[in-house]
């Protein structure tokens, strides 16, 4: 087993990435603490291409090129997990297809830790093993 295999994998949701890329003052520090887990080698940060595209769209529209530079720096530390057709298709039957597709892609990849500010949006997947947590809570758990 390589050292990377023994590290916890953490999914980073779009709202956490946006807190950094848009410099949302109330949330940016907690989001950066999640990123620090990856930069310091304490966790493997992952997301999906759909999440990255959503974040990019909002970032460019809201803050222009500077936000793209931030997103680029963030994504250098993030690994993409695949979204299969099955996960996207199955997600469409949920109230929130975006959250559902992300959760299902995570389950397919065996990733259960999820950093998000929208914990309630992932409740339907908790009984399948997804553990959505606020960024500050997740960092505290992994720091114990």
């Amino acid at each position, binding site marked *: 087993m390589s050292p990377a295999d023994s590290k916890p994998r953490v999914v980073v949701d779009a709202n956490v990435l946006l807190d*950094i*890329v*848009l*410099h*949302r*003052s*109330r949330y*940016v*520090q907690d989001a*950066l603490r999640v*990123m*620090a887990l990856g*930069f*310091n080698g304490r966790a493997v940060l992952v997301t999906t291409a759909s999440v990255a595209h*959503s974040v990019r*769209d*909002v970032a460019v*529209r*809201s*803050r222009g090129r*500077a*936000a793209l*530079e*931030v997103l680029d*720096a*963030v994504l*250098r*530390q993030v690994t993409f997990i695949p979204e299969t057709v099955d996960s996207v298709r199955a997600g469409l039957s949920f*109230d*929130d*297809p*975006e959250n559902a597709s992300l959760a299902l892609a995570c389950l397919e990849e065996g990733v259960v830790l999820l950093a998000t500010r929208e914990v309630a949006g992932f409740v339907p997947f908790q009984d399948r093993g997804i553990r959505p947590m606020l960024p500050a809570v997740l960092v505290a758990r992994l720091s114990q």
Partner: protein
Amino acid sequence: MLYLYVMPKYPDSEKKKLTLRLSEDSIAYAKQRADELGLSVSALVAQFFEAIQAPVEAKNADFQALIDLVDKIPPQGESAFDPEDPYYKWARGQRYESRRL
């Protein structure tokens, strides 16, 4: 009793008011140290809190580069989130529509 406002790094962040109950000896010692340093007691305690909140780990150079990039972007308060952004409108509308089905 000492009231202390802890101000996080970013100006729009929430102010938190902490109430400390200290013994007379502690307050006297704090005043002595504050006088030595040319600070108010509140400023001294604020520095103490800042120190204990500082990350223990040395910052990775790439992570510091990320923070520098973020600092170049003007902070956005919650009231400045644009609810009329087409992406948010689309996402909100999609959720609303799907719940009506």
